[in-house]
């Protein structure tokens, strides 16, 4: 499956890429904000996206809206700090399937993405 990573932090991006790249997921793009995410998404058509919420230029909420317009069956895992539950719930209402709280371990992330994909297959 193809994976797009969206996060404004370089450290988080490489952490996610490291944790998921080795697990049957092909990282097809790393985006620093919503704009980059949308253009990378259009080119690479990923199946799974990890999405930060607070980013410059275009935030996660707007980005989720655009991505799902482009491809409604995209699996989106929101990866954000738990500071504002309301925004995270907003993201889920828009169409994200899951939420992972920062900070996370590579194990946490891998399990969350596995659960996300499993849920999409069975449910």
């Amino acid at each position: 499956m193809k994976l797009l990573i969206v996060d404004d932090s370089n450290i988080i991006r490489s952490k996610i890429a490291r944790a998921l790249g080795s697990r049957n997921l092909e990282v097809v793009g790393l985006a620093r904000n919503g704009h980059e995410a949308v253009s990378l998404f259009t080119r690479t058509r990923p199946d799974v996206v990890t999405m930060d919420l607070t980013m410059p230029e275009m935030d996660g909420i707007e980005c989720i809206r655009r991505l799902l317009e482009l491809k409604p069956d995209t699996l989106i895992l929101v990866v954000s700090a738990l500071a504002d539950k309301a925004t995270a719930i907003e993201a889920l209402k828009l169409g994200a399937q899951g939420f992972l709280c920062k900070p996370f371990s590579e194990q946490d992330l891998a399990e969350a993405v596995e659960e996300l994909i499993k849920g999409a297959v069975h449910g």
Partner: protein
Amino acid sequence: MRFFGLGKYRVIVLTVAMFLVFDLGVLVLNFVISSQIAADALAVNMAGRQRMLSQRAAKTLWQINERTVAGQPASGEMAELTEAVALFDETLTAFRQGGSVRGGAGVVVTLDRIDDAEAIAILQRTNAVWEPYRARITSLLANPAPDIDAVRSALDVARGANLELLKLMNELTSQVEVTAAAKATTLRAVQIGGITLATANFVLILFHFLRKLRQGDALLEQAKKETDDILVTVNEGLFLLDRNFRIGSQHSHALEGILGRSDLGGADFVDLLRGIVTEKTVGMSRDYLDLLFGERVNEKLVGSLNPLDVVEVHFDDQRGGFVTKYLEFRFNRVREGGVVAHLLVTANDVTKRVQLERALKEAHERAKGQMDLLVEVLQVEPDALRDFLAAAAVCLDKVNTLLRERTASAADRREAVIAIYRLLHGLKGDASGVGLSGLAESIHEVEDLVVGLREKHATLDGNDFLPLTVRLERLFTQVDALRGVVNRFAQIRGVVAVEPARAATEPDAAQAPQVRRWREFATRLAEKQGKHVQLHYHGVDPATLASPYREALPTVVNQFIRNAVVHGLEKPEQRLAQGKPAAGNIALYLAAREDGGVDLSFRDDGAGLQLAAIRQAAIERGLLSASEAEACDARRLVELIFRPAFSTRSSADEDGGRGVGLDVIRNYVNEWGGNIRIGSTPREYCHFRISLPRPSPQLSAGAARINGEAA
């Protein structure tokens, strides 16, 4: 095909249907046979009428004959004969082929064709007799006024046929009756059979299914009891939520306690939240529950967003106030046929856990704060610190009083705010002055609050002071903690600062004449007390010290030696029992500082200061009341030993017990402008440290006085 979803009721429905089929069958047969019996009765009736008609035809024929012989007209009889023959013929045809017949009173009835073999044979024989007979009569009747010969000829035929017809019609009647009786018997048998089957079916339903139903009921009852037992016993609040967020009819007993109400079945969960949590949390909870009822989000991946994970709730306490609790709600999807039908909700009262976590966190922060304080205190001059703490206590008390009396007019409240500001501002300055920057920061925060109140002065009311009271309380705690640290620290200081290493020790000073005199004095005194002692000396030759210390210090040291040997050191056997060497040790250190001052350290490894004995002595001498003595801390008790005429010895002798000595030492040290510190641990040691500044010229006279008084 699953029998239209009848499930376990399939058999009972089939059985009831069979019961109905049996009943219906009996009914239909009953109907069919009854109508046949009716037809049979008609046939019997008609067969009987044929008998009568045959006789009537014969009789009418005979009457015609009579009237014709008498020359009378016979038109009435002719008509009657015509009628009788027509009826007989019509009925006979109907018996053989089926058809309509005129019955009694002119009603037309329908006769079924007779299909009984015996009866058919009778009918055939009847026909054979009847046909010639009918032909003869028909030709007779063709002439309205027949001659006598024609009548006689017909009468002759009638004589031959009449008896035969009567006999045949009798046979027919009997035969039809026999057939009808046979049918009635069949009908009864069918009815009995049908009713028997239906009854058997009913009995089956009654016993078999009732038993099954009762078994099912018992199982249900047991299952319900088990569920009830669980719901009554479980400590968690358990209930189901439907898509409209309504609470199900069943919930655990504990839930009522957790939510503080009992009318929960069917209640709207979101409405219920509305009164006890913030509106924002209500909105988030509704969204979250919607997401769980939807299929899209992954249940396991959204648990951390549960807004009711640990939530602060406020319940009315029925006395106008409210109770704050912390509740934890967990939600799990319950699927029916792959669809989320309900959410199973687990509710817990986690108030104690939350409070414990907070207390732990606070304790941790307090410990850290104390550590910071300790570091700060270490750098502050002890006397300045003591003065500051005393001033701080007074200042905070004043603020507290102002806050307590704030309830008067708005003008009073404004004045109070200004006064509080002034007090706190002063205290903040002092705190930074002595170097307690942490405390100064805390005071500054409170000061900010007060500034806020001052700006609000037009609308100031009593409630505005509430946060100030809370913050002030914290300030009190901080100052208390500081005092605690200082007290503990004062005891530690004596130990950590045992020997100032500022002046070099002269190797042969230990053999200086003055030191020898001290050692001899200690040994002599110990012998008299039945003790052993060793005096170790470090430092400078006392003879090299500046005047007046050179003259006065030997006396001070003698006093310490006397005090140590008489009060401090234990008897050899006691020391051995405590694991100490039999001989007590006295460590004496004397140093001349570069600044011209002198440091003296005197330490013995005896019993240490015995606070209980000091306390007791203070009470006996009326210095403290029993309750005061009980409340007195170690520092104050230790200070008592410097009081004039204070001694813990019960009897005085020439070596100690009169209570003269330490008070004298303190007087001199005060006079020289120096200070004394004491450190002591029970059963381990007692340590005096005297620090004296560079002597001022006018002290010389004082030195002479010491020599005179305390030797």
